[in-house]
């Protein structure tokens, strides 16, 4: 099972900064800035992109929405998943307990 978030991909990804987005809002208008920020979120790497996702997850709704992991917190997310895996490895499963 691959539980690694693809670090190389995530490291390359940078969402526009608040300053950059404000600059776009000033230059092109608030709606253009909102559209660009939204598109950046959609284009950002989702956790599903880097590893196998639960087989029947319906979280990716048929609308224009998607999960993403911000670049700056990718490491935090990877740590959480490792932590969960470590817990799974260290504590017995219900089947093992019985």
């Amino acid at each position: 099972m691959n539980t690694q978030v693809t670090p190389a991909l995530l490291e390359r990804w940078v969402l526009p900064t608040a300053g950059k987005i404000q600059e776009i809002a000033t230059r092109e208008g608030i709606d253009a800035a909102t559209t660009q920020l939204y598109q950046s979120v959609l284009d950002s790497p989702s956790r599903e992109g880097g590893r196998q996702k639960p087989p029947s997850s319906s979280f990716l709704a048929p609308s224009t929405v998607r999960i993403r992991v911000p670049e700056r917190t990718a490491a935090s997310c990877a740590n959480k998943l490792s932590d969960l895996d470590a817990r799974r490895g260290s504590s017995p499963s219900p089947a093992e307990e019985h």
Partner: protein
Amino acid sequence: MKQNARIICDWLLAHHEQPVILASLSKGGADVKMALAEPNAAEAFKNVAAWINLCGILNGTPMAEWLLSRNPAALLNRLYYTLRGQGLGFLRDLGYGPGRPLNCELQLPQHILMVTIAGFPLHEHLSSALARRCHRRLTHLGPNDGSLVLSDVCALPDLLYPIWGADHYLRPKTDVNQLVLSVLQYLDEELQWHLCPQP
């Protein structure tokens, strides 16, 4: 807000037998953020597996600053709150920027998976005059949902579920029940997938 933070911690300490998924809406997000800063937060949040943050005001809102301003319309709003018997303390709690209570780092423990849901509306999507006014008042801060600055939302840890065309109250057409059900199903599968061995 401080009292709410204590109530959350106390409740969690009293319900530590099973994993918990927290869900908060709007100002409730600020309450959870403050609860995470309580001295016994590590113990209280030990069994919290995930936090669904629906449009949470985690850094305060510039609308609170506007409502506390000397603008005549803000004054009328404050009068309205006072006549309804509502104090104005909540506005000070939700202030935005340096020196405000929520201008602090979110202390999210490593083991809690945070899922943030926020609206990304264009001006034309806003269905009420009030929503349009709030959106316009925050325009100088960039993209916003009428209450939250969206670049702040994008800086939150873990997962973000952006809803195109929805305002801070997820209007005009978001099916919140279906949305929350989908998120819960996702979390159920995600957490089980990691905590239970797969064949």
